[in-house]
């Protein structure tokens, strides 16, 4: 997977988030460079998902700025979204359609190298035999695999994943973990939240504990 590794930088300055009158975190700082992974730790409800959504630009922070190569992400939204791959809690899989149709949709919509066929993609996520099954009949874990398939074809640099490992069986976690490692080696960037441990190699990843940024 070749990625042009011009040096990119994602920084967050004095970020604060308030939900329903309650301040979840304030003046939070972070910066991420090529080949680095940031793992967001913190108990439930401390604002992990809100922080991810602020970084993707889906929701706005109460104050503070997220910038990509020193540009505020709101001003360069189109370009930023071109580099951004976000997989949230929900699997974003159309349950009425079959696995094949969902994968085709993914390939058509997201910037990806197109020389990989749907069959190969299904192979990556181990759903080769289930191509014509409608997703409604798949288990939650399998539906997650369909949404994670994007990791195997995406040429986007910044990956933001919300609890990517939930509902996955052990051997598939292996597959995802080394996929992430390849992405980092190729100069990509990853931000993810997870409850269980994930080893991406310590030289790449650092942790950000949301508990430290609680309003005192």
């Amino acid at each position, binding site marked *: 997977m070749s990625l042009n590794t011009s040096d990119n930088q994602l920084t967050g300055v004095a970020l604060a988030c308030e939900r329903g009158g309650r301040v979840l975190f304030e003046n939070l700082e972070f910066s991420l460079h090529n080949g680095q992974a940031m793992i967001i730790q913190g108990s439930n409800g401390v604002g992990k998902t809100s922080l991810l959504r602020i970084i993707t630009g889906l929701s706005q922070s109460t104050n503070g700025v997220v910038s990509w190569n020193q540009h505020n992400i709101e001003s360069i939204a189109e370009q930023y979204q071109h580099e951004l791959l976000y997989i949230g809690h929900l699997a*974003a899989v159309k*349950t009425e359609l079959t696995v094949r149709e969902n994968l085709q949709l993914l390939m058509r919509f997201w910037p990806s190298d197109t020389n990989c066929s749907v069959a190969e993609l299904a192979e990556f996520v181990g759903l080769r035999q289930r191509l014509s099954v409608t997703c409604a009949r798949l288990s939650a874990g399998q539906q997650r695999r369909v949404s994670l398939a994007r990791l195997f074809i995406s040429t986007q640099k910044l990956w933001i994943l919300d609890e990517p490992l939930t509902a996955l069986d052990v051997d598939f976690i292996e597959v995802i973990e080394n996929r992430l490692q390849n992405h980092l080696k190729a100069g990509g960037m990853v931000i993810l939240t997870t409850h269980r441990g994930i080893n991406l190699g310590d030289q790449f990843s650092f942790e950000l504990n949301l508990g430290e940024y609680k309003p005192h």
Partner: protein
Amino acid sequence: MLAIRRRRELANPLVFFVIVVSLFPLGVSPDKELLSQMAPGVIWVTALLATLMSMDVMFRSDYDDGSLEQLLLLPGPKVLLIGAKITAHWASIGLPLVVLAPIMSLLLYFPTHAIGSLVVTLLISTPILSLLGSVGVALTLSLRSGGILSSLLILPFYIPVLIFSTMAINASANSLPVSGYYALLGAFLIISALLIPFAVVAALRVSYN
């Protein structure tokens, strides 16, 4: 474009339309004179309510399974995609109504020579109804009691469409020139087709905030 054909069958708004239209002769009085006088209004109001009721389907399924979230993050022009979604909704709800309305109008002794203008007004207006409705649904998407609220928000905007269409039908019933009304409805369609998708994108962004 991304007009995902809904696999689930979408009969409920049509069934609603049929039942409510047949309520009127039972409720009011089956006498011919009165009914044919009321017919345009009845058909139109019921069609309007049927579309309004089915608005929720447009974003709800995508919202629940997360694909609407992805749509907002697409680098490409989001407005076109929203436009495609609205047209998909119109095709699955609006068009069948346009086909069904003339048939139902016979039940109400609808002045037959005005049925043509009934179809035309519905054809021009049902997209407007879908467009305007989509703003209401987009705004109330993240709320639990969203459905009722979105109708409350959108109904005032339906009034001009209702007025011009029913007037057009009445005019054609007593064979008066009708082109003026069609032009107005057409203009309203063009304006909303161009402006509304932008409002919907902004509304979706707010719902996700």
